[in-house]
């Protein structure tokens, strides 16, 4: 089989995942999109491993690592999503904006100069 097929498939998977991460609102779907991107990478690793005929099959070994890490990551990620949902009644990523810069709040270390200048 020509290398182009798995490579193109991987690009498609990655782009789908990327689109999902950037555009979906539901946190669970974002996590699923991350999985898609990871699997696109896995596909690449296996395909190039075969194409390069690597005696040590480093690509395949690395794939196993990625799968294990992805499993751990999805476990933690789903747990976080669950807690967020319990706390807020929503897992909508657009609404999780607690880290936003509030217009009223000054930066963390207020200085006398700043207030003096603000007054002047």
């Amino acid at each position, binding site marked *: 089989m020509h290398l182009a097929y798995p490579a193109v498939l991987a690009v498609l998977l990655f782009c789908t995942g*990327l689109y999902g*991460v*950037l*555009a979906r609102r539901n946190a669970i779907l974002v996590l699923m999109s991350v999985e898609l991107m990871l699997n696109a990478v896995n596909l690449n690793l296996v395909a190039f491993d075969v194409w390069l005929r690597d005696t040590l099959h480093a690509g395949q070994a690395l794939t196993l690592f990625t799968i294990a890490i992805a499993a751990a990551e999805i476990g933690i990620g789903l747990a976080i999503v669950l807690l967020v949902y319990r706390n807020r009644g929503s897992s909508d*990523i*657009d609404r*999780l*904006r*607690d*880290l*936003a*810069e509030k217009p009223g709040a000054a*930066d963390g270390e207020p200085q006398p*100069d*700043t207030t003096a*200048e603000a007054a002047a």
Partner: protein
Amino acid sequence: MTLTTTAVLVPLLPFLGAVAGLLLGRRAPGFVRPLAVLPTLAAAVLAVAVAVGQGTGPATDVATELTPTGSIPIDLALHLDGFAVLIAVLVGVVATCVQLYSTGYLRNDPRYASYAALVSLFTSAMLLVVYTGDLMMLLVGWEVMGICSYFLVGHYWETEAARAASLKAFVVTKLGDVPFLFGIFALAADAGTFRITGILGSVASGGLDHPTLIALLLLAGVAGKSAQFPLHTWLPDAMAGPTPVSALIHAATMVAAGIYVVARLLPVFAASAAALVVMAVMAALTMVGSGLAALAQDDIKRVLAYSTVGQLGYMLGALAVGDRGAAVFHLISHGAFKALLFLGAGVIIHAAGTNSLAAMSRMSGLARRIPDAYWTMTVALLALAAIPPFAGFFSKEAVLGAAEHAATGAAHGIPGAAGWTVLVSGLLTALLTAAYATRLWLRAFRGTGVEAPDHGRQPVVMNAVLWALFLPTVALGLAAPLLPEWFDGRSLAPTLTTSVLGTGIALVGGLVTYAAWRHTTALAARTPIGAVVAAPDAGPEAAEETAIATHAAVYGDNAGAADPADPGRLLLGPLQPHAAVGFHLDAVYSVLFVRPVRAAATLVRFLDREVVDTYVRGAGAAPRWLGAAVRRAQTGNVQTYLGALLAGSLVLAIAAVLVATGTGA
């Protein structure tokens, strides 16, 4: 011990005493008094030994190179001649008297230890100036004296007047020291050496290229140190220091240094007729002006201070007519009787509880309370007024005789104008001196009114010192025939014309003042005046400190008092208010120096606050504004961040590819 070793020990002992006193002052208070008195006493004894050993023989010069400088070397040099050894004896004796007197006068002072150590250091610096044969070493002593006078004048630093006076003394003398330093450099550059003998040799062979410039530069430093017009204003204000310090500064150390330097370098000044005329005019202005000002002062110590300024004018006048023997003779006799006058004034201030003559003239029986001070001061005032046969008569007549000698054209190389200036102003000052001496005596000891407060007996040591200084005040005139051997060999005996003229004028001054006093004293009862510090148990220094601190508050002025019973007011007439403030010289200085400096300070403050600080603030404000702008991108939406991250990565990747292919192709 050889003569050299002895001479080295003379300035060294008080210096070591000062160091030990400063180090041990707090830990071992019992050693402070011995450490103050004994080194100074030993130095005085050794100074006498040096004087005896040196005798009237040729000058002793010893030198060792201190450090190679690349151009003109600096030597540790001793130069002992008649002038040096006799002045050193005067310094030693007066300093010993002052140290002894201080043990009584400042017996309760908490800062006595540092005070005594600084007096020792002061003495040591003056002895260094006197003995040294190298101008750089002289400058060291000269500047050490400057800083010591700053500390000692400011001894009562709790009072505003003392703080201001110490700063003024320091700044005004430094104003003269800067030209003095340049003068020394110019002199050394012309002569090729800092050694005084070398310089004088070079002058004798006509090796000086700019004698007038050098002489005038040196004269500026001398005017600052020896309180000559126009830099004399610090000296009357320095009366805010303790009385023994005034005695030390006025009699033997600080102010004598300037006269001594001119006497040592007289050939340099004599090489320029212009410098001599400038010196004569300066001396004349100083003499007459200070005499008038002394007549208007109310503080007893300020009267004495202006009289010192005037007597230093006599000495400078004698130098201006080329007779350093007369100048140094007057320096020595003046040192004796002025030390006595100041130390006596300290006793009076303690006994009367005030430093104001107006207040003293309203108390009776002050003379009975302090008989020792009364008698010794009476004689010292007669000596000051140059009444024969006391010391002041002989030395002043020596000055006047030298001036007459120069005025009649008998002195070689001295402009006749200088002679006449000194002679006329000297005679006029004799009149004024007698007048203010009489005024001081009458107002201090012949007051009428309530009985003087009883402050107990004065310490024995203070009275003993007064009598010790009484001896030279009376008898130093007898030395007049012996002294020429020690000096330049010119006769110092009084000449008939000037003696009769000077004594007659002095008597006239005294009698006129007496008549004026008889006329005005009846007014004293009508105008009650005076605040007296009545604290019998307090030490003398406490009474004086309070008197100084309250004078301006009670009388409205540091110098004068609005007293219609003052004979000086009648004698001076419309001049009196101007004379009381030293003829507004301080106001002139304020316009010439203080205000421009303050304006410059305001400008610098503006530049610092408004210009420099704007840059500094800008450096802080610009990043803060940038940060505020960047913070707006922080929306809290994770997907926006990731989108920005992706876009940035893409741009970087494309750029990397473009660069790689661009350079590769």
